[in-house]
């Protein structure tokens, strides 16, 4: 309901915003000089997910550039979008999820980052270059990614295989939970059935719906929960198997080394959070410097070693925490990424497909 409201309001704000940007930033997407003066050229404003960057890295950048970094946080892509569209806050950089890029581009909130001109752009792994949500990396640089896996506590439960079958198959003894996210849940079912997570085929989606209906009516189905909740339930032992973002689970291993996570053999979903340069950016030059800084192998590794989220940076790979490198689920192979076995969640085609996903999700949640 909340999201519906926000989206409805966005419709209203959009017209206003576009008018503003048209007059403010005509031409090659450069900003008006006024806001730059206002911020003295020494302040960088970033809005990102909470706890998503190593504070030491931020301090290092502040020192190196003699600048101040203002770091604000958001809880969902939708809230961030609404705040930006309202025009109340001027940020330089944001970290939306990949399936949100086109929404933001259409709302004319982004300006080209020209990442190819950055000296460290070459560090990005081939599997993350030229993604279909942003052909040619015009607007985005991949920041961190999250593959979705199945987690368990090996002290209490031993899975018989690394397959989605434990959840979607006929067994009824496993206590499991699914992520509270329509694309992840429907995506998992599609993957199990051998289809694409971005399928718009009605017959395939119907099959996924029937499978999910059976799944959530099983005795073992616990709930739709967010990552941290799943991790906590596994720690407490009230759950056998949980769908989870790999990073959320790995953070818990320090607490209990028995926590394990695998990427199911049938394939799974993955989503990247990206760095984008916002159209109203008061300080695009400093923002580009920051993006380049984050792309340095050492810095990028430090961030992943702090967040435990996936790292798209090849220069960072050897510098990652040995524990992270030892986790198969942390680093899906380039082959699996290229073949689409580990598949990116993309924006759906508007209209019918979106409605179908919505209807399946509502149907499941109502049970």
């Amino acid at each position: 309901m909340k999201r519906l409201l926000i989206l409805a309001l966005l419709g209203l704000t959009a017209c206003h915003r576009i008018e503003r940007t048209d007059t403010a930033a005509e031409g090659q997407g450069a900003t008006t000089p006024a806001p730059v003066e206002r911020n003295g050229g020494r302040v960088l404003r970033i809005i990102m997910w909470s706890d998503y960057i190593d504070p030491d890295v931020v301090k290092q950048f502040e020192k190196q550039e003699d600048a101040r970094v203002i770091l604000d946080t958001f809880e969902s892509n939708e809230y961030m979008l609404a705040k930006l569209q309202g025009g109340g806050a001027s940020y330089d950089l944001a970290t939306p999820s990949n399936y949100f890029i086109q929404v933001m581009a259409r709302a004319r909130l982004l300006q080209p980052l020209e990442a190819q001109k950055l000296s460290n752009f070459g560090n990005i792994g081939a599997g993350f270059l030229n993604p279909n949500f942003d052909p040619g990396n015009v607007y985005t640089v991949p920041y961190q990614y999250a593959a979705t896996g199945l987690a368990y506590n090996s002290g209490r439960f031993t899975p018989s295989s690394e397959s989605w079958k434990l959840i979607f198959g006929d067994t009824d003894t496993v206590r499991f939970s699914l992520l509270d996210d329509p694309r992840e849940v429907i995506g998992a079912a599609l993957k199990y059935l051998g289809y694409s997570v971005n399928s718009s085929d009605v017959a395939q989606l119907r099959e996924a719906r029937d499978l999910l209906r059976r799944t959530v009516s099983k005795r073992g189905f616990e709930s739709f929960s967010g990552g941290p909740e799943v991790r906590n339930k596994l720690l407490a032992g009230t759950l056998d198997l949980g769908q989870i973002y790999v990073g959320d689970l790995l953070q818990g291993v320090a607490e209990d080394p028995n926590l394990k996570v695998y990427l199911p053999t049938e394939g799974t979903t993955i989503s990247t959070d990206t760095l984008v340069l916002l159209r109203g950016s008061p300080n695009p030059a400093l923002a580009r410097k920051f993006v380049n800084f984050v792309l340095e192998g050492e810095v990028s590794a430090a961030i992943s070693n702090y967040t435990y989220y996936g790292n798209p940076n090849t220069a960072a790979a050897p510098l990652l925490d040995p524990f992270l490198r030892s986790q198969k689920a942390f680093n899906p192979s380039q082959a699996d990424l290229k073949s689409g076995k580990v598949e990116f969640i993309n924006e759906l085609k508007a209209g019918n497909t979106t409605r179908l996903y919505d209807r399946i999700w509502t149907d499941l949640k109502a049970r």
Partner: protein
Amino acid sequence: MIRRTHPALSAWAWLVYGFLYLPILVLIIFSFNDSKFGATWAGFTTKWYGVLLAREDVREALTNTLLVALSSTLISTVLGTLVGLGLWRYSTRFRLPLTFLLVTPIVIPDVVMGVSLLMFYSLVRGGLELTGWTFENGFWTVMFAHVTFQISYVALTVRSRLAGYDRSLEEAARDLGASSVQSFLRVILPLALPGVLAGALLAFTLSLDDFVVTYFTSGSGFRTLPVLIYTSVKKGVTPDINALSTLLVLFTVVAIVAANAIMRPRAGRGGDS
């Protein structure tokens, strides 16, 4: 003769109180839990309070929260009291529309309020920029946003406090020789005071835990506690936030007890006169 409460009724009451307060109790207990994720009990510790005090962002957010709450409460209490008095005292054809306007901020969803204020501020900024002036969203925009919804609560509590009193009380005071200022200060205001204080407390609490409106009107770099806490929920709440919540609960309890102590004798005197 008052009958004793039926045991089933009191059992029900205990159940309801348990339902309301057990989660808070659990939160307080887990703020002393020596586990980063707080799912299982890993021993007693007070370290999270230390962690909390060392967090600069929390201190800054706390200062912001209190500054906004105090200043917006002050403004909205004065304005809201005047509106409440006006509604009680004058009957004009604007009374119904005015009441309607007062109720609106209470019933419309926070998101609508937040986004519309955000748009309003950008429009104002756009207009000001033409004259060479400009401002950034931050303390002031958040503070005034809070005032906009607080006024309604104060005005309505003040009006309902006065609703039981006869309007001729003021006329009597005037007949006995009180000036309009005197009759306001010595008759009307004392009568309304419990309502004013209740409204102010309500306004303060609302400001203290407002997330949505604050989030949208705060611009960049100005964070209050609810914004800090809510936006970290996605990554799991750390135990130092439990510690913070415990302190807030403690603060609220003290404030309520103090407010009761202040308001009780006044209410008694009001009844006597």
